[in-house]
């Protein structure tokens, strides 16, 4: 038998520690092969989650806007019509992922409380119903539809849409965090909270953008405050997520992806629009300049929201491929 010297680099050495021959510090895995499977999710799922967040946020905005103030009345109408368009369009995005339209219907044959995907799809369907009813009411009040049709949307449809909106925005986070993925699992509280905050910030940004186009500057003023609050909350959640996730958070917070997330989501997507919005709150700018300011701030927030979702999904792929993270599942 050849007399081989012990080689500390040999990956197999540690595995035999049970026999008492050697103890190596880092427990070896199976040829460093992934233990878990990475998600097969691309741009379409990212877009679905991003729009789901905006849709949810608009649900709250349409409730907050008071019908007796002229600017908020117009905002309410805009938020309702936009949210309905998003709710109607989002299944189409999901279908591009599933492959065939009928496959969306497979999810409507069952309600599963333990499946965030199932509850989320039902949330989306019910939200579409509430948003649709509220749009009918808007159009009936406007006279586009017969006036009697406003009774199709009783008053409780407004808070119903807001509640369902909060659920759809939140579920886009739970969908990721309640999986076997170590990075997503390490954000079991932070990812859902960040999804709600980012959803509302993006919804406020989209509503600001549309209100600017309508010339509804009073509403923009209020929306930008809401956007600042939601953006600040998102930053706090992300900062705490970095602390809490530790090594699990590496694929998200470190390297090129971490830099991209910090640049587009935190800096350009949250801090920069906050500064622009604060400027708008404090200084009275000439109207055309102010419109440009709002537009830039809104677009930045929307881009930041998209990059956040994209970074979450992509970091989940890397995390799944790392057997060391997979074997030390976060509790």
């Amino acid at each position, binding site marked *: 038998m*050849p*007399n*081989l010297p012990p080689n500390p680099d040999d990956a*197999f*050495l540690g*595995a*035999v520690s*049970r*026999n008492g*021959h*050697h103890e190596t510090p880092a427990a070896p895995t*199976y*040829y460093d*092969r*992934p*233990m*878990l*499977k990475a*998600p*097969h999710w691309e741009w379409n799922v990212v877009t679905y989650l991003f729009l789901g967040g905006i849709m949810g946020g608009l649900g*709250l905005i349409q409730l*907050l806007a008071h019908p007796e103030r002229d600017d908020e009345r117009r905002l309410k109408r805009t938020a309702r019509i936009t949210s309905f368009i998003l709710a109607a369009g989002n299944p189409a995005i999901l279908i591009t*992922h*599933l*492959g*065939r339209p*009928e*496959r969306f219907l*497979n*999810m409507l044959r*069952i309600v*599963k409380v*333990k*499946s*965030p*995907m199932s509850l989320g799809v039902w949330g989306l369907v019910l939200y579409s119903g509430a948003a649709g009813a509220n749009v009918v009411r808007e159009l009936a009040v406007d006279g586009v539809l017969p006036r009697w049709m406003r009774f199709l949307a009783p008053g409780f449809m407004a808070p119903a849409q807001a509640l369902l909106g909060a659920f759809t*925005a*939140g579920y886009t*986070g739970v*969908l990721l965090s*309640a*999986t*076997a993925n170590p990075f997503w*699992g390490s954000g*079991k*509280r*932070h990812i*859902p*909270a960040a999804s*709600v905050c980012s959803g*509302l910030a993006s919804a406020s940004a989209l509503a600001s953008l549309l209100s600017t186009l309508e010339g509804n500057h*009073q509403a923009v003023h209020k929306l930008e405050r809401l956007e600042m*609050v*939601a953006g600040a*909350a998102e930053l706090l959640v992300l900062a705490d997520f970095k602390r809490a996730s530790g090594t699990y958070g590496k694929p998200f917070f470190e390297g090129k992806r971490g830099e991209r997330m910090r640049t587009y989501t935190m800096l350009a997507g949250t801090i920069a629009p906050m500064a622009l919005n604060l400027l708008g709150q404090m200084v009275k700018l000439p109207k055309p300049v102010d419109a440009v300011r709002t537009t830039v701030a809104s677009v930045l927030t929307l881009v930041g929201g998209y990059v956040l979702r994209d970074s979450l999904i992509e970091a989940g792929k890397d995390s*799944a491929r790392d*057997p060391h993270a997979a*074997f030390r*599942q976060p*509790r």
Partner: protein
Amino acid sequence: MATGFFTDTTLCIGCKACEVACKQWNELPSDGFTFTGNSYDNTSELSGTTWRHVAFVEQMSVDQQGGLHDRWLMSSDVCKHCTNAGCLEACPTGAIIRNEFDSVFIQPDVCNGCGYCVVSCPFGVVDLIEKFDPDGTHYNLASLAESRLDAKQTAVQQSGGVAGKCTLCYDRQKVGFEPACAKACPTESIQFGDIDELRERARVRVETLADRGVEAQLYGADDVGGGIGSLNAFFLLTDRPETYNLPAQPVLPSTRQPAGYAAAAAAAVGLAIAGWMIFRNA
């Protein structure tokens, strides 16, 4: 009756007859010819179209006196058919069911290919089957089954991509046959049968091995923790589970839901109050 697999890795000789029998019976496509350099394991992993995977671990070490010790571990991995299955809970279509043999089974005609089971399996077993390739190099199980009935291309063939994993040979069990892998295993490393009986047999085996000086442990015969419960396909191992690419502390994904929903609700309530104040004070 609850049936399952007891995979006794001390009896495995690494012949891969289980892999071949599974591929043949279930008409699964080849994995292609790849050379990994990882001992004799060129299959690498379980996938949507690979439902048995033999892991090879070559262990060599030198003791204090300079004596060489070597050991070759082989283990045929398979879907664990968990008591509380992450994939089954996550499936939004109800395609993943628990059948009358207590196995976790994917109905390919109901599956919509969303891929949520893939990220919800704590063992990394389930995967999407590759999309249909008209050249015929890749195809999926569902399309194959349907093409027997209809020569035209079916819906699943056109769009491809449903989830696949071990069915515990549901079709064979239905007619009283044992699963193809267990049937083909020449050393009875893969044993099929009533799950309670298998557990009893496995415990006796651990004691027998202990008498012979072999330290062995069962993986999944009892609760593996994390809310998953016991596994209907369990293993007898002679090293840490991680050595065989099995997680020592798996977690059932749905246990993370309450915290997630609570955090989302807290954020939503907080922002709604802030929003109410902003709009009221304006």
